[in-house]
Structure formats: structure tokens, C-alpha cells
């Protein structure tokens, strides 16, 4: 186990390094003189020169990357032009709402998607199965902001159940926290439920065709036990895998949902930073989300050891 963990953690290092290189290279993709573009139309030559030095655009690619990467390791993501603040501090300020939203969404999704997918697989071709598959393909097709505005229109504008916009931190009480987050979390969970219910259904349906399920039935076990202890237990690895991969989808959705419901999290920060061409912030946020994604999938990999005794490292 220890060796396995060490191996998996080491394996994330090249991935993180490549992410860092890609993120670093972004600024150099800007056509023409990046410093001039970033500074904007109103900038003086001095401004441009200052930005060029600050971003190290006057140095070579690798020389500047080394300086930048050294900062990363110590947690220094540079300075925001627009907010005039440390990027690390900015991210720390905004991370609460984003993680709250993502966490609530994952909880809602797993509670809905796994039982529904399992039942649909059990009654393959039945009404629940067809309804769930119909919902799933629709869930993949409606853009998350359209869902957001639909929910806002019906649950907040039409019937005044939830606030239309805004965010209350957990310190304001768990009731207020959930009341403000429920609509965004439901919005965001639609596509995630679609994905996970679909994979649960496919994996459980596949497990149900396996010989060991036939053995379980030949033992005279009730269907509920066959379904949960035999089929679902064997489908756990692909389901957990997709929950992990789906986090990428979730992060994309967070950016849009925060924008729709005006939640002051990292998503709105990203959009503001792009509109202001505030590259240090853009780079910092992307790095943060990528590290989060890689860490979650590291956890997923570790969970395999508990879900499937055949996987031993």
C-alpha cells in the first residue's frame, strides 16, 4: 500500500509538470506583443515595459519558466494586475463558495444517480430504464446556463422558494448556506447525474450478465442482495472512476453556474480575469483546478484497492 501510494504520487509529478508548462506557455501564445495586448489601448510605453518585465516576457522561455516554477513551489502565483493582489490570496478568498457548490453537487448526484442507474439496469428496457435514458440524453444536451435560468425562472421568479442570486457562507448557518446553494447545485447536478446514472446503468447491466450473478441466483438469494452485493459491488470501480473523471465536467459547469447565480467563487473570478486579460489570475485558477482534478483522481485510484481485492500494489 505504501509503495503503491508513493508510486501513484510520483506518477502525478510529470502530469503536473506538463500542466504547468501548458499554463505557463499560454501567455506566449498571445499574438503580437503580449505585453502591449495585456496593457490595453490606454497604456503608455512605460506601462507596457513594466508589464513586460513583470511577466518576464523579456527573458527566454525556459529561463522565465524556471523562475515562475520556483514561485509555484513556494505557493507564489504572482500578482494580479486587475485586483492588485497576490493571486494566491485571491484564490483563497474565493475558494469557499466554489468548493461548497461542488461538494453539494457531488453529494446530490451520487444520491440520485447510483440508485436510479442500478434500478434501471435491473429492469433493463423497462419504463424506469427508458425514462432515465431519455433524461440522461436530455441532460447531456441542455446547456447548463439554460438549466440555470429555467430553474431561476420557475423556483425563484415564479414561486419564491429560493433566492435568485448570491451566496451565504457556511458560517451564516447551514440552512442559509443550503438555501442559497440548492438551486445552483441542482442546476449543476443535471449533467453530472446524466453521466453517472448512465455509467452506473451500463456497468451494473454488464455485471448482471456475469456468471457470478447467475451463481448468486442459483444460491436462492433475494434479488436485492444479488443486485447490491453482487452486481453493484462489482460495478463500483467503473462508477467511481467516472465520478472522478466527471469532476472535469463539474469544474467547467461551476464556472458557468457561478456566473448565472452570481456566486462570488473561482468561476466568476476566472471570467472577470479573462475579460480583464489578467493572465496571472487566469494561470493561477487553471493550475488550482487542475491540481484539484489530479488529486481527486489520485483518491479515486487509491479507492480501487478497497473496492476490488484483485487490485493490489
Amino acid at each position, binding site marked *: 500500500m505504501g509503495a503503491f501510494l508513493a508510486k501513484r504520487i510520483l506518477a502525478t509529478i*510529470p*502530469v*503536473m*509538470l*506538463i*500542466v504547468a*508548462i*501548458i*499554463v505557463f506557455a*499560454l*501567455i506566449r*501564445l*498571445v*499574438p503580437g506583443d503580449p505585453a502591449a*495586448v495585456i496593457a490595453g489601448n490606454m497604456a503608455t510605453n512605460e506601462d507596457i515595459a513594466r508589464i513586460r518585465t513583470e511577466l518576464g516576457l523579456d527573458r527566454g522561455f525556459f529561463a522565465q519558466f524556471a523562475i515562475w516554477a520556483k514561485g509555484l513551489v513556494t505557493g507564489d502565483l504572482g500578482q494580479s494586475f486587475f485586483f492588485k493582489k497576490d493571486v494566491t490570496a485571491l484564490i483563497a478568498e474565493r475558494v469557499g463558495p466554489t468548493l461548497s457548490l461542488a461538494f453539494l453537487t457531488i453529494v446530490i448526484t451520487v444520491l440520485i444517480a447510483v440508485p436510479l442507474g442500478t434500478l434501471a439496469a435491473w429492469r433493463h428496457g423497462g419504463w424506469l430504464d427508458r425514462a432515465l435514458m431519455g433524461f440522461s*440524453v*436530455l441532460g*447531456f*444536451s*441542455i*446547456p*447548463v*446556463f*439554460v438549466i440555470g*435560468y429555467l430553474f*431561476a*425562472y420557475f423556483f425563484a*421568479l415564479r414561486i419564491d422558494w429560493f433566492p435568485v442570486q448570491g451566496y451565504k457562507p457556511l458560517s451564516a448557518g447551514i440552512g442559509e448556506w443550503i438555501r442559497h446553494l440548492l438551486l445552483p447545485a441542482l442546476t449543476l447536478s443535471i449533467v453530472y447525474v446524466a*453521466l453517472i446514472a*448512465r*455509467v452506473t446503468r*451500463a*456497468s451494473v447491466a454488464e455485471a448482471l450478465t456475469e456468471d457470478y450473478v447467475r451463481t448468486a441466483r442459483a444460491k436462492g438469494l433475494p434479488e436485492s442482495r444479488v443486485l447490491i452485493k453482487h452486481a453493484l459491488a462489482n460495478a463500483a470501480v*467503473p462508477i467511481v*472512476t*467516472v465520478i472522478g*473523471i*466527471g469532476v*472535469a*465536467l463539474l*469544474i*467547467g*459547469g461551476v*464556472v*458557468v453556474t457561478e*456566473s448565472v447565480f452570481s456566486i462570488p467563487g473561482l468561476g466568476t473570478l*476566472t*471570467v472577470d480575469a*479573462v*475579460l480583464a*486579460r489578467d*493572465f496571472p489570475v*487566469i*494561470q493561477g*485558477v*487553471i493550475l488550482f*483546478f*487542475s491540481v484539484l*482534478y*489530479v488529486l481527486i483522481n489520485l483518491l479515486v485510484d487509491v479507492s480501487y484497492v478497497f473496492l476490488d481485492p484483485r487490485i493490489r500494489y
Partner: protein
Amino acid sequence: MSPNVRRVLKNGAVRFGSTVLIVLTVIALLAPWLGTTDPAWLDAVNMNQKPGVTVDWTGPDNQTAPRTLLMGTDSFGRDIYSRVLYGARVSLLVGVIVSVVALAIGTLFGLLAGYFRRVDAVLMRFMDGLMSIPAILLAIALVAALGASLTTVIVAIAIPEIPRVTRLVRSLVLSIREEPYIEAAISVGTPVWKILLRHVLPNSIAPMVVQGTYVCASAILIEAILSFLGLGLPSEIPTWGNIMAEARVVFSSAPYNMWFPGIFLTLTVLAVNLLGDGLRDTLDPKFNKRGAQR
């Protein structure tokens, strides 16, 4: 092959999806002749008109005549009906080009990685890195760096899709190359490139086509999201995302500005997804774990 084609054409999802897409393509191509006006034209007298009203409308030729506004106007006084119809052009174009580009590059990479171990080690590490950045964020960052034009938006959306296609093709190659018929081909002296083209590629086509439709759906959605956030194509270009971005401002008074493009967008993506699901069910029953290609 013909029984295969017949089976595909009998599938309800394929029929629905392809019918909707053909109709949308026709609408997009014939937009100028479907009672539209210049989608960028604004008539400041007729701002925020409700759908269905008939008004005195001053057109691009400066002639004023009565006009029925099927979907109303936005807060600048632009005709939403015209903008929605022209918007279909951008969505379909982005969907098709992104899926073709991502599929072509991803297939090339996947074949190389699946067959040559040295290429595999380097290429797949890079793809792992690329995949660790959530697709929408990467697209947003690329647009921020490259600037927003049709070409850059297409490039920005295509790049995050390439590693997904690469992984799929690579895993197909790895499983197909274990098949005894590949060993049989090796033992009759068939060179590697011929094995890839004659045996591996034909046996990978079905899942690749299916993947292509999912890439297309995702590309259309991401383009709309970029526009909606105000980060995509310039706002004077009519795209469904841009129309909805403008609708946000007046949402509480005129929510229908959001619904018209929203319905078109959803219907388009739904049609592409159904086409993909139908193709998957009929061509490749084993490959049904969407998103689980890890």
C-alpha cells in the same frame, strides 16, 4: 455492409437525430430567404419588443414597413428571429469542424501511441497533462490568449478534445492488436503500416464515428458557453450564446429572449447526441460506457 446500413437507418434515435440536423442545416443555409433581415441590423425605435407583435420596422435599406417580429427584439432593437436563424450557421460550423479536426489529429496520435511504445510514453504523458485541465477552462484560457475569432474559437475548442480521441483510438488499437487475426496478418508478412490501415482502422471506425458525434455535441455546447460568458465570438456576430448573453440583462422582464435560442441550441445538441447513441447501439453494442474511456 448493407444490412448494417439498413439496421442503422431503422433506428429511431438515428432517424430523429439526422432529420433534425438536416432541417437545421437547411435553415442555416437558406436563412437569407426565410424572411430574415440583417442579423446585425438594429432599429433603435423597436427595442425590447415582445414576440409576435407587428411594428413599423426600419430595415437596413432605411425603408420603414410593417414587420411581424416572430421572436421579438433584444435590448438593442435587433430582430431575434433573424439572429437565431443565422446563429445556426455558427453552431453547426463549429460542431462539424471541431469534430473533424479533433478526430483526424486524435486518430493519428492514437494509432501512433497504440502501435509504437516509444511514441506512447511521451505522447500519452502530454495528453494526460492536457486532460487534467478541464475542457471549458482550457478553451477559455486559449481564447483569452489567442483572441476571439471564428478560427481561434474552433482551435480553442478542438485542442481539449484531442486527448480524448487519442485515448479512445489508442485503447482500441491496444485491444485490436491482441486479436489473433493481427498475429495472422503479421505471420503472412504484412507490414505494420498496412496492418494499421487494413485491419486496425476498419475495426475502429464504429466507435470513432460515435465518439465524433459526442465531440461535435460538446463543441457546440462549449462554443455557446464561451459566447454566453462574453468570452467567445464578438457580440455583433449572431450566435445562440451571444443572443442569450444579451438576454441575461433583461431576463426578469423578457425571459423569452433566453428561451428561443435555448430551445434551438438544446434541440441541436440533442439531435447530435441521439444520432451518436443510435449509431453506438446499432454499430457497436459493446461500446456503451460513455465517458468511461479511461
